[in-house]
């Protein structure tokens, strides 16, 4: 084996137990006397510290380089603005203006300026901390709230990870850029899932992603016994090994809510984690499957052949939007949205969780229109023209231009390419062109609960923020033409780019939170984000009775922030049963405790929402 073993713990959706697996694995191995590090790469919602209680010994800022214009040298020629693909610098007739928050730090404007008027300054986007939790080395990255770009902070955390020993990487959820950044650096991947339809759907996406990256992997089934057997059948069929099962247990759930490790609550689990190491070493030593980094049009499910509609901007319409979000994934956001759709009068739905879209599993949409989505550009090198000078590699700050072994010509690692165009502008032989990347597809559908706009982001594709904006925009247009008084959006989890795109300019945001220490921590971060947008916000506590203490703490936190808890939903196994039956819980089990609580929640949400609408009208 080479220097060390890097294990990434990932999942197609959040809330499946990634952090549980990663922290327990690290601690179990540490107790055996192994050299172990835990690296929290879930920089939008880092939660590992809650379970590990590390002593932080070092911390450093993560910065990206943004332009600074020397007005004495600038002659307003505008070359900087033309070079920038992200509108982060723009030349006006009288001056040059920069937008540091839009800057990806590619350096393109600096190269483009013929006057040498642009220099760079560092701008903070987050922080990396290191320390120790007992024998376990601890590293985490934290993205500053309101920042969209997680990958630089993840790279910062990965840089600080030890090079030897076992390194457990707690990856962000989903299959988009931040996840790729984490998973690509691993020797082996553990994909955590739940035995539910949402879990299976998201596992498929995650499997597609790791296959594309060519990293060996195995599956962990968390909350085993809570749903159905579909996940085992699927894994067997695909030849994927289930390496570990963690039973569905209230003891584990309670321990989690208090910030306690599962191996402390259920000591028999310890051996399971210890034994996992050998299996992972063996998997990692297997020869890597060589993989082609090609951007393919992502394969889409379904046999519909609907007419593609033009990717035009729909007429601008203003339909009141309620966006349901959660700081972390897996809090029950989608189940709440599905029930709201069943309770609301004539609503339109939009699924903005494009990385791990699940709402369609409950709505069973009949697709009327499908449209390919292009979220940006990607560099393409003409191998005939490339002379192998390497200027492109030198200028690319994202490590996206590589030289394959034994080759003179350069190649673009498509998963790393930011589409900044620096390489194309630099190439003295005109060998590089920027081409439109196809990142996914979006759909307009009919469902039993009303019209539905949803999307699928291609595996390992970027630009989910733009796709989210596309879905919302078309959601509003569809709502308008269907005469819906309300658009209900299932938002993205986290606090980064797609979430910002989900909530911007919404009328009201409902945050679904679980009564756990992690839930509280994430609520704090998402609340801070929403308050930056000045949007009315309410809170709903899901599975409130799993930890009455944490529920009270959340209610108190909320009060301090001047936020209202609009509902508490009791834990109810019929929520999973409804999911298996592909129905919302208010349809499937209208008399169950969860359905009762959600109806009450909906009435409160509706009241608040209507108040917001009236408020808006009087304002105008």
């Amino acid at each position: 084996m080479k220097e060390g073993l890097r294990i990434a713990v990932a999942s197609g959706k959040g809330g499946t137990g990634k952090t549980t697996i990663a922290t327990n694995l690290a601690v179990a191995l540490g107790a055996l006397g192994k050299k172990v590090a835990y690296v929290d790469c879930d920089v939008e919602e880092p939660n590992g510290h809650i379970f590990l209680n590390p002593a932080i010994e070092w911390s450093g800022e993560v910065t990206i380089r943004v332009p600074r214009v020397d007005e004495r040298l600038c002659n307003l020629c505008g070359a900087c603005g033309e070079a920038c693909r992200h509108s982060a610098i723009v030349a006006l007739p009288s001056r040059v203006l920069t937008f540091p928050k839009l800057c990806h730090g590619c350096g393109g404007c600096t190269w483009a300026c013929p006057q040498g008027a642009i220099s760079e300054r560092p701008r903070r986007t987050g922080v990396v901390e290191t320390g120790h939790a007992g024998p376990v080395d601890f590293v985490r990255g934290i993205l500053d709230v309101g920042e969209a770009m997680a990958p630089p902070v993840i790279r910062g955390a990965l840089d600080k990870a030890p090079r030897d020993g076992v390194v457990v990487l707690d990856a962000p959820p989903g299959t988009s850029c931040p996840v790729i950044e984490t998973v690509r650096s691993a020797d082996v991947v553990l994909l955590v899932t739940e035995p539910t339809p949402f879990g299976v759907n998201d596992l498929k996406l995650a499997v597609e992603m790791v296959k594309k990256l060519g990293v060996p992997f195995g599956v962990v089934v968390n909350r085993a016994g809570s749903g159905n057997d579909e996940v085992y059948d699927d894994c067997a069929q695909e030849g994927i090994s289930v390496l570990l099962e963690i039973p569905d247990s209230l003891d584990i759930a309670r321990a989690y809510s208090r910030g306690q490790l599962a191996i402390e609550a259920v000591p028999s689990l310890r051996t399971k984690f210890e034994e996992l190491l050998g299996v992972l070493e063996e998997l990692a030593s297997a020869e890597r499957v060589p993989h082609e980094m090609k951007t393919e049009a992502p394969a889409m499910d379904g046999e519909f052949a609907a007419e593609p509609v033009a990717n035009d901007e729909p007429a601008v319409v203003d339909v009141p939007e309620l966006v349901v979000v959660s700081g972390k994934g897996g809090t029950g956001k989608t189940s709440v949205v599905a029930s709201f759709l069943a309770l609301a009068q004539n609503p339109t739905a939009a699924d903005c969780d494009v990385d791990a879209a699940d709402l369609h599993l409950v709505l069973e949409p009949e697709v009327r229109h499908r449209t390919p989505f292009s979220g940006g550009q990607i560099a393409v090198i003409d191998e005939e023209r490339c002379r192998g000078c390497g200027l492109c590699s030198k200028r690319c700050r994202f490590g996206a231009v590589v030289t394959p072994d034994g080759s003179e010509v350069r190649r673009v690692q498509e998963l790393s390419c930011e589409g900044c165009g620096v390489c194309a502008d630099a190439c003295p032989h005109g060998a590089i062109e920027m081409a439109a990347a196809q990142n996914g597809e979006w759909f307009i559908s009919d469902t039993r609960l009303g019209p539905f706009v949803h999307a699928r982001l291609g595996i390992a594709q970027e630009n989910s923020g733009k796709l989210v904006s596309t879905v919302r925009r078309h959601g509003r247009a569809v709502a308008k033409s269907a005469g819906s008084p309300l658009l209900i959006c299932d938002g993205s989890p986290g606090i980064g780019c797609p979430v910002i795109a989900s909530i911007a300019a919404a009328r009201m945001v409902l945050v679904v939170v679980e009564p756990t220490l992690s839930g509280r921590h994430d609520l704090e971060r998402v609340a801070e984000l929403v308050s930056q947008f000045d949007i009315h916000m309410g809170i709903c506590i899901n599975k409130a009775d799993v930890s009455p203490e944490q529920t009270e703490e959340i209610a108190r936190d909320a009060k301090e922030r001047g936020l209202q808890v609009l509902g508490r939903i009791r834990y109810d196994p019929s929520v999973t049963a409804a999911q298996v039956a592909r129905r919302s819980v208010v349809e499937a089990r209208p008399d169950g405790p969860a359905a009762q609580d959600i109806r009450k929640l909906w009435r409160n949400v509706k009241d608040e929402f209507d108040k917001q609408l009236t408020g808006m009208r009087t304002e105008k």
Partner: protein
Amino acid sequence: MKIAVSASGPALDAGLDPRFGRCSHFVIVETEDMSFEALDNAAAAAGGGAGIQAARAVAQSGARAVLTGNCGPSANQTLTAAGLEVFTGCSGTVAQAVESFRSGLSAS
């Protein structure tokens, strides 16, 4: 004085498009005689920063003010930096918006 109106078409009787960055056209109207030219908003389909690019184009058109429904913070910052005045909350057709702008001016 020239003013730019975010519009859903290239004419005076086109509806005012309430969103600045993503409208299909800007109608640039000379308030003296209501002569106008229409500008395609190339930024409407941009991924990010549509408002900024639109604002830049409007600034280059020579307009001194903008009439629109809503204008995002980046677009607003760009327009202000370029010395344009921004009036949000406008509605109706392009001609109507310009009319009420003119009567507002004479009233003040």
